[in-house]
């Protein structure tokens, strides 16, 4: 179960691919998938926040970080969708790489905190930049 959160992001890609195999794909399915995915993103980020509550920072900071993570995760997808819908610009292809780098750096920092004494990584100190960063954090634990 350790990698369940990351494993579900792998399995999350299966529904769309199954829909494409069973032609024709339905826009309603895609809409439902997007909405349910955002709900699950919020739940996972909230779970991470609850896990981190007993550690380190005051609860106010933890709540603020979780709120920021959920907001940026939602904003990331909403902005990308709007960019595509309005054709105002190309979605920057290097954005996921930047998120990956930030998420990995945050994970390594948290891991080093884990190995330096505390039994539980001080998650509440993790300034997750997006849902991706949080998932990478879970993936690297």
């Amino acid at each position, binding site marked *: 179960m350790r990698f369940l959160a990351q494993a579900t992001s792998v*399995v999350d*890609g*299966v529904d769309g691919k199954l829909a494409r195999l069973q032609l024709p794909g339905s826009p309603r399915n895609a809409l439902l998938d997007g909405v349910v995915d955002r709900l699950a993103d919020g739940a996972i980020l909230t779970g991470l926040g609850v896990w981190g509550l007993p550690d380190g920072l005051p609860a106010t900071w933890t709540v603020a970080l979780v709120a920021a993570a959920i907001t940026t995760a939602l904003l990331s997808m909403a902005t990308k969708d709007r960019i595509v819908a309005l054709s105002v610009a190309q979605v920057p292809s290097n954005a996921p790489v930047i998120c990956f780098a930030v998420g990995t750096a945050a994970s390594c920092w948290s891991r080093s905190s884990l190995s330096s004494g505390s039994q539980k990584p001080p998650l509440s100190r993790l300034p997750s930049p997006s849902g991706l960063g949080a998932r990478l954090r879970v993936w690297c634990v």
Partner: protein
Amino acid sequence: MPEGSYWQDVDTPADVAHAQAMLRGSLAKPAAGPVSRWLNRPFSTRLTMLLAPLRLSPNLVIWLVCGLRMLAAGLLAAGQDVA
């Protein structure tokens, strides 16, 4: 047949394997990011091909995955098997 689709004769087991490989390759989205392309996709496309014969409804899979992710969120919140 939708435009852009392909077809091939399937007469031998080798043809079946080739057709499956072509189908799996067609599942990739060209605009996917590096995490999707290199980490998630190799697993999700293979899993899709394994599940395809069951003809599961995509909506059913959406809700199943949602349930799994909610379970993951609950386990994270409980601090179960994370550290």
